[in-house]
């Protein structure tokens, strides 16, 4: 996990429209290593989505505004790469899946294959990948449907699939399960975790702190467009000052802390369900 695959150096961005009165990102520097599960949290407006757009090259190539600093993906400067080239290496799943689909495709299968056609992938290979991704995302029963007829959850799965299908080695996920029911979104995260285990680097923005704590190798907290802190989930969520930054600790931490305050428990502040249950059970037996 030593090779750096994404690197931001002094990254700043100011949108050209009305929202550009203040900097969306301001002097953001960090790096992500190969195979890492890197999470980004922070209040709304802290710059999380802007960061995602900058990592995949939509900034500066698509969004109008002033960018400072650099983003390197596999060592290549995003300014000097095209969005097409970048998309084969770093894939983004949008926050709003309705914004991600092309809506020019007549069927889900065509929607999934849409990006591949633009990238010159041969037809047989396209068919093979569509089949595999549809199965992975559990949308194989709706590949012949019109994307406009799908439910919010189904659109989200198609949006995921249309990113996975390019087989990027880095995935950027911008709050990508907001349309899914709880177990459906867990199912998607199991897929993401599998991909991560097989070597795919994941950079994830999410408001679900239980999930962040469970998945992340490291967590970066953004505050007003700046990096507030980068650390392990245990250290970040164990920090009582964290609420001041507009993010909550997982409920597991709150339970452990409440037990500690009352003298029932003296162990670590757990950040996951299973370990919290074990800690509660153990403290009960004492």
């Amino acid at each position: 996990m030593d090779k750096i695959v994404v690197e931001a150096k002094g990254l700043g961005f100011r949108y050209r429209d009305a929202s550009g009165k203040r900097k969306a990102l301001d002097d953001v520097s960090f790096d992500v290593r190969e195979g890492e599960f890197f999470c980004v949290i922070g209040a709304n407006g802290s710059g999380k989505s802007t960061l995602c757009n900058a990592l995949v090259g939509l900034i500066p190539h698509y969004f109008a505004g002033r960018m400072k600093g650099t983003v390197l993906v596999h060592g290549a400067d995003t300014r000097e790469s095209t969005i097409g080239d970048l998309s084969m290496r770093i894939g983004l799943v949008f926050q709003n899946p309705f914004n991600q689909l092309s809506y020019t495709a007549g069927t889900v299968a065509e929607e999934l294959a849409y990006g591949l056609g633009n990238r010159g992938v041969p037809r047989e290979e396209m068919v093979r990948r569509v089949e595999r991704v549809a199965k992975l995302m559990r949308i194989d029963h709706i590949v012949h449907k019109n994307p406009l007829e799908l439910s919010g959850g189904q659109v989200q799965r198609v949006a995921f699939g249309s990113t996975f299908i390019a087989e990027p080695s880095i995935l950027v996920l911008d709050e990508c399960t907001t349309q899914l029911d709880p177990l459906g979104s867990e199912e998607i995260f199991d897929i993401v975790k599998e991909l991560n285990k097989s070597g795919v680097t994941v950079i994830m923005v999410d408001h679900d702190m239980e999930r962040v704590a469970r998945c992340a190798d490291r967590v970066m907290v953004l505050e007003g467009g700046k990096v507030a802190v980068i650390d392990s989930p245990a250290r970040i969520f164990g920090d009582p000052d964290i609420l001041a930054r507009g993010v909550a600790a997982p409920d597991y931490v709150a339970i452990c802390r409440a037990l500690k305050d009352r003298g029932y428990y003296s162990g670590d502040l757990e950040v996951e369900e299973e370990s919290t249950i074990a800690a509660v059970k153990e403290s009960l037996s004492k």
Partner: protein
Amino acid sequence: MMIEIQNLRHVYPTGDEALKGLSLAISGTSPVAIIGQNGSGKTTLVKHFNGILRPTSGQVLIDGESIESRSTAKWAKEVGYVFQNPDDQIFLETVRKEFEFGPTQIGMPEERIKERIGLIAELCGLEGKLDMHPFDLTSTEKKFCTIGAVLMMDPKAVVFDEPTCGQDIEGNRRLCGIVKKLEEMGTLCITISHDMKFVAGNFRRAIVMCKGRILLDGSVEEVFAEVETLKQSFVSPPPITRVAQGAGLGKTVFSVEAFIRAYEARRA
């Protein structure tokens, strides 16, 4: 406000049967959550509460009056509906115009509209942003703009479809405040949500849908105790509840305080 549903079926033009004959009564002012897996029919169901969708068969009665007796526009002052995606709802150039549109359409006196704008803007955290273009708002503010636009009409009941989608702590807090305030004002609040923490913390009654039917209907305590049944609809209880269940505390709890009470009862 009383919403009665009798043997409601809804079949979309594509042939999909989204609601398979369900019956339900919602009354009073205590907030009601509708939960369940994607595609279970939640949005289809609530779109019948003000006639956006009409039953294929069965009955929808609002305070005893059939939904078929009026147009959707005429129902808007009884039951307000806030869309899942704010971009589906916003269409005017300023927040103020969004706020004025609905009440003007239903013939609310100008004086009353002016009076309400201040109140609703404060409730939605948009006091200083009334003259902004809705598309220049942050995603959170946009959502509150659509909520405000519906509340402006002072409906007897309001339906929120996935209001916590993409909200941060601050937005969540504001939303909890709105749910509470609506109950105080006597407005029935019905909310579709996938956010079980939000449901457990703010609602008394939960209706769980699964494949076009009602799987469970009861108090949030009763519903979240049915862990195995909930799985059928891809729902699991909120984290605190799951830890209490996993550690065998024997109580359905939703807050750290309630967790500690159950824990201390077990120790004693």
